[in-house]
C-alpha cells in the first residue's frame, strides 16, 4: 500500500480507482447525525469519513475574546489517531492548526457574523478516516452543519480539489494521487454568489494548467453543491413523507 504505483493513469486514461479525469469520488452526506450538537453533518467522500459539529451562536468563552460588533467563529479541524495508516498523535499538529485556520477563513464570508455580536460559534471537524482532500470535504460538511444549526448564511460553501497527476489535470485527488502527483489546487466556492472563498496551490503548474485546474474544481464544486442541498432537504422531506 505504501509502495509508489508505477502508473497513476493507465492507457485508457483511467485513474488508480478507475475514475475518469473529471470524475468525483462517490459522496454520501447525512445531516443532523448528532443530537448534542446544534448542527451536524457526516460526510463520506471516497474513503474519507468526516464528522462536523456546530455549536452556537452562544455566549463566548473566554469572555474577553468576544467582539463587540460580530460573532467570533472558531474552528477545530482534528484527525483521529486511527484516521491514517500510521497512528497520528492526537495532539493538534502544525498542519491541523493551519487547516483549522484555512477552513475558518473559507467559511467566514458565508455567515452573517454581524447579526449576533458578543457571541461565538464553534465548529468541530473530526476526521475519522483520511484519504486525501480532507480539507475540502471538511469545508463542505462544516458549511452544511452551520446551515443545519440554523445560522443565517449567504450561501452554502462547497469545496473540491483539482490537481495534476502525471501530465493531465484531474478532479478530486485521492491520497496517493496527492502525494505522488505534481500539484493540488483546493477551491472553496459559494456557487449561487459565484464567489471563491478558498484557493490554494501546492506543487508546480503552468498558467494554463492552473486555469483549467481551477475551472475543473469549480465544476466539481457545483456537482457537490447539488448533493449538499439535497442532503439538507432530505432531513425535512423525509419527515414529511412519513406522516403522509
Amino acid at each position, binding site marked *: 500500500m505504501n509502495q509508489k504505483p508505477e502508473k497513476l493513469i493507465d492507457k485508457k486514461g483511467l485513474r488508480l480507482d478507475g475514475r475518469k479525469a473529471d470524475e468525483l469520488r462517490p459522496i454520501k452526506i447525512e445531516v443532523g447525525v448528532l443530537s448534542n450538537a*446544534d*448542527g451536524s453533518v457526516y460526510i463520506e467522500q471516497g474513503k474519507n469519513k468526516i464528522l462536523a459539529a456546530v455549536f*452556537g*451562536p*452562544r*455566549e463566548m468563552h473566554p469572555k474577553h475574546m468576544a467582539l*463587540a460588533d460580530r460573532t467570533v467563529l472558531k474552528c477545530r479541524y482534528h484527525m483521529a489517531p486511527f484516521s491514517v495508516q500510521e497512528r497520528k498523535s492526537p495532539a493538534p499538529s502544525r498542519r491541523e492548526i493551519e487547516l483549522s485556520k484555512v477552513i475558518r477563513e473559507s467559511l467566514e464570508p458565508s455567515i*452573517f457574523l454581524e447579526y*449576533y*455580536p*458578543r*457571541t461565538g460559534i464553534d465548529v468541530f471537524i473530526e476526521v475519522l478516516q483520511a484519504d486525501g482532500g480532507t480539507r475540502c470535504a471538511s469545508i463542505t460538511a462544516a458549511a452544511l452543519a452551520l*446551515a*443545519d*444549526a*440554523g445560522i*443565517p*448564511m*449567504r*450561501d*452554502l460553501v462547497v469545496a473540491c480539489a483539482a490537481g495534476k497527476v502525471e501530465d493531465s489535470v484531474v478532479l478530486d485527488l485521492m491520497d496517493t494521487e496527492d502525494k505522488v502527483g505534481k500539484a493540488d489546487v483546493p477551491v472553496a466556492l*459559494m*456557487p*449561487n*454568489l459565484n464567489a471563491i472563498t478558498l484557493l490554494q496551490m501546492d506543487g508546480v503548474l503552468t498558467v494554463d494548467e492552473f486555469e483549467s485546474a481551477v475551472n475543473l474544481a469549480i465544476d466539481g464544486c457545483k456537482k457537490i453543491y447539488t448533493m449538499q*442541498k439535497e442532503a*439538507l*432537504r432530505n432531513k*425535512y*422531506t423525509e*419527515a*414529511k413523507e412519513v*406522516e*403522509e
Partner: protein
Amino acid sequence: MPTFFEMRQLVTPGDLIAEGEYVAGENTYAENGKIYASRTGLVEYDNKTVNIVALRSFYIPRVGDIVIGTIIEVGFNGWTVDISSPYLALLRASDVLSRPFKPQKDELSQVLDMGDLVVAKVVSYDRTHDPQLTVGEPGLGKITRGEIIKIIPTKIPRVIGRKGSMISMIKQETNCQIILGLNGVILITGKDIEDEQLALMAIRRIDQESHTSGLTDRVTQMLKEEKAKREETKNESET
C-alpha cells in the same frame, strides 16, 4: 420580476428566491436587486415581501417578549437566567423583591435558587447589552408546578395557530393552562398529570409536523382519540 419558488416550498441558504420589485423579509437578504434565502425554511410571500419560516433557528430577545428561563447563577444583586438564546439574561434582585434590596439582609438564593424556572418579560435588550428581565407583572414569576417542553422558537406561531385557533383548542381539549415563552419554552399546568401529558403530546406533534398543512384538524382528532382511549381503559378497570 419573477419568483423562483412557490408559496411554502422548501429552500436552503443561498437559494435565489425572487428578483426585481420584491422586499427581503425574515431570513432572507437582498443583493443587487436579487433576494436570497439565508436559512433553511419555507417561502412565504406577503404582498411584495418575501419571508422564510425557518425550520431551525434560535431565540433573539425582543423587548416585551414573555420568556421562560432557568436560573443558572445567583449573583450579588441578581440572577443570571438561561433563556435558551445566544445571550444570557439578567434578573435584578430589586425587581423580584419589589422593595429596595439590602445585601446584608436578603439571601438571594432563598428567593430564587439555581435550577428554578421563571416566567419573565424582557424589559431591555440591544446589540450592546444582554437582555434584562422583569417578573413584576401579573402572571410572571417563579414556576412551582407543571410540565416544561422546549421547541424551536420559530414554531411558536404554529402552536398558537391562526388567530389562536390551535392553542385555544388544546387548552379546551385538555383543560390545561399553557404559557408560551417566545424563546420556545412552553409551560403546561393542568389538574392532573394525565391532562398535562395529553397537552404535551399535542405540542410534540406540532413540533414534528410544523411544516405540514391541516395540522389543527389532525391534532384535534388525535386528542379526541386519545381521550376516548383513556376513557375506555378507565371503564375497563372499573368493571
